[in-house]
């Protein structure tokens, strides 16, 4: 009886840990951390349909062949449930190795999969993945193990479903649906964080405003559908021209904005000029015609322009963009303070 209470307590804290997780890796980590107190196993895995990934938390002495066997078996069981993927080569494997056993019980390098428990992760009649306990020992699991594992699986499925919903809401909330760039709201939020880092850490931060020249003419001549295609193409060029740490967002209409953390005025000018040249050289297919399009760009930078707030940075970049337009378009202007 005391053993049952002990196991129930472990089960409770495992479920609690799963509930507190904010991403799938954390679920695997927290479950993997608690599961050795409930079961004796060699590898614990989650196959998540979205992204076709198997996350494995396993004993550090697990040989590669065992890992592959587990992955293959999980995919096989998943296929039996009538779900993709049916081919292990189409699955991404992410493995976390931990010391689950004392040294004298290390796994043999030729260890093979001898027993397993696999359960579908089901929410509201939909299978979103499966979880699996695997062992190199024969008959390693019994009915009570299955009962405990199913309770854990139930909780994981609910948490993962919650992630799925949250991530689709998050996608709607932060992305511009036409260009797939970040939207203005996300830009504002991101700028708060980057400006704080820059102002308090005294690291440089630059902002680039980008505007498509004569975009109204494209819309009026070729229609909004063609105009939208131009916006999408320019968005791709912008994404391809920046560094990993930069943020590219649609500011509104045909205007875009770039946040360049740790970039001083020289680096920002280099990136802006690269974008201007790339757009200028690209031949855009608009309707049945091929045409050249240009962009104007305005730059503001901290600390050189003495911006005291994020609003200052936006205003200064906007002013520089206005200068670029007034100066004849297809050019990069840096805030001059005049």
């Amino acid at each position, binding site marked *: 009886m005391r053993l049952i209470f002990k196991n129930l307590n472990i089960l409770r804290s495992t479920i609690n840990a799963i509930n507190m997780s904010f991403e799938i890796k954390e679920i695997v980590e927290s479950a993997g951390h608690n599961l050795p107190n409930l079961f004796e196993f060699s590898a614990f895995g989650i196959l998540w349909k979205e992204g076709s990934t198997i996350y494995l938390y396993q004993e550090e002495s697990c040989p590669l062949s065992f890992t592959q066997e587990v992955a293959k078996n999980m995919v*096989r*069981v998943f296929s*039996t*449930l*009538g779900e993709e993927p049916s081919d292990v080569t189409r699955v991404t494997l992410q493995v976390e190795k931990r010391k689950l056993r004392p040294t004298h019980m290390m796994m043999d390098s030729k260890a093979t999969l001898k*027993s*397993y*428990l*696999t*359960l*579908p992760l*089901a*929410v509201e*009649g939909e*299978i979103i993945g499966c979880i699996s306990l695997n062992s190199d020992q024969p*008959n390693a*699991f*019994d*009915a009570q*193990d*299955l*009962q405990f594992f*199913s*309770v854990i*699986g*139930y909780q994981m*499925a609910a948490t993962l479903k919650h992630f799925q919903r949250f991530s689709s809401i998050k996608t709607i909330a932060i992305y511009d649906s036409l260009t797939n760039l970040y939207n203005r709201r996300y830009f504002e939020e991101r700028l708060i964080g980057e400006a704080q880092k820059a102002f308090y850490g005294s690291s440089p931060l630059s902002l680039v405003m980008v505007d498509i020249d004569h975009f109204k003419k494209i819309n009026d001549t070729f229609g909004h559908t063609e105009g939208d295609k131009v916006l999408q193409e320019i968005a791709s060029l912008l994404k391809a021209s920046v560094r990993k740490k930069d943020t590219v967002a649609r500011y509104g209409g045909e205007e875009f904005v770039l946040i360049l953390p740790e970039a001083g005025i020289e680096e920002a000018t280099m990136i802006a000029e690269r974008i201007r040249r790339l757009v200028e050289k690209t031949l855009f297919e608009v309707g049945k015609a091929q045409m050249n399009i240009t962009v104007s760009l305005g730059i503001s930078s901290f600390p050189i322009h003495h911006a005291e707030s994020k609003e200052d940075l936006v205003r200064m970049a906007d002013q520089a963009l206005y200068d670029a337009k007034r100066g004849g378009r297809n050019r990069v202007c840096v805030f001059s303070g005049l």
Partner: protein
Amino acid sequence: MTERGKEEREGKWTADLVLDLHSNLLKEIWEVVAALIGEAVLGLLFHLAIKKMGEKYLFLNSLKVTEEGISMDEVVEECRSLPAAEIHRGFQGLINHLFNLFSALAEGVISREVFPKVFPKLREAERLISQK
């Protein structure tokens, strides 16, 4: 010929018995396995098995499975015009497929719990059919 004799000749009497038997059998499976893996997952496995076997035995598609359990009401209606052997084969196929799924998921762990309770009833159904 008496009414009962007529029913027996047409296989009706046996069909009702086979239906009763399989109804109890499925309920037994539900109770034992739900305690092991939960109603949600079990319901899903039943749906998979019904979908698979329902292609061949159409009457199985009338089985209603929810997290509360299995309802046979519509199947009983569907089976009124079917021979007992056909009903038996359909349910047997469904149960076999369920057992395949159980084995795929948990090797022998589920089967070991369910089989002793289910096997005698399956044999009973087979005996009834062979008597006909």
